[in-house]
């Protein structure tokens, strides 16, 4: 049972344009959502997060939107840069269960110069 899904396995975008990554979840008990960026053969690095009581969080070029009624979140990267090419994972936290994170399957982003 996949509780967190990223339905787009890949995304290609032109440098300078906006990248939009989507993530859907099923468990309404998730209280915190995070986005990670991962390069091959490296550990994921934390990008940005959002609490379930908010609907938007912005940090520089990265903005995360949360739609609780739709159980959907998205990550916007603008403007996209070639260094943003990586795999992006969304994750959802269950605070009541050891702070466990459940990850989506990832979306590979390719930013073309």
């Amino acid at each position, binding site marked *: 049972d996949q509780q967190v899904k990223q339905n787009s396995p890949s995304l290609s975008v032109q440098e300078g344009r906006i990248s939009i990554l989507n993530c859907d979840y099923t468990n309404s008990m998730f209280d915190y959502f995070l986005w990670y960026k991962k390069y091959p053969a490296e550990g994921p690095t934390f990008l940005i997060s959002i609490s379930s009581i908010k609907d938007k969080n912005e940090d520089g070029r990265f903005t995360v939107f949360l739609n609780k009624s739709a159980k959907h979140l998205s990550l916007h990267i603008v403007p996209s840069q070639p260094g943003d090419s990586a795999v992006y994972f969304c994750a959802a936290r269950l605070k009541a269960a050891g*702070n466990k994170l459940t*990850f989506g399957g990832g979306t590979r982003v390719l930013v073309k110069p």
Partner: protein
Amino acid sequence: SQTIHQWPATLVQPVGSPLSLECTVEGTSNPNLYWYRQAAGRGLQLLFYSVGIGQISSEVPQNLSASRPQDRQFILSSKKLLLSDSGFYLCAWSMRYTAYFFGPGTRLTVL
């Protein structure tokens, strides 16, 4: 500042051999610790998590086990590796209400 170490970085093991991967965290006390695995072309799967010394919760029944002999040390083991154990193993830590921070990972290939 906090840092997390994993070793070895890469490992090639024959089927049926034992496994021991180690993870240590510096600069924090009583962290939550986690083992994840990323199989080729797949997402991150939680294997084990620990909220304290000697406290291990298993997420996926399999031939792997985990131990936490010290506050900032987390060990992933197997008595007999299977081909399906190949993957990229990641250790992570968090404090109670923060994001996870991941180690550099161990690439395990079982032949």
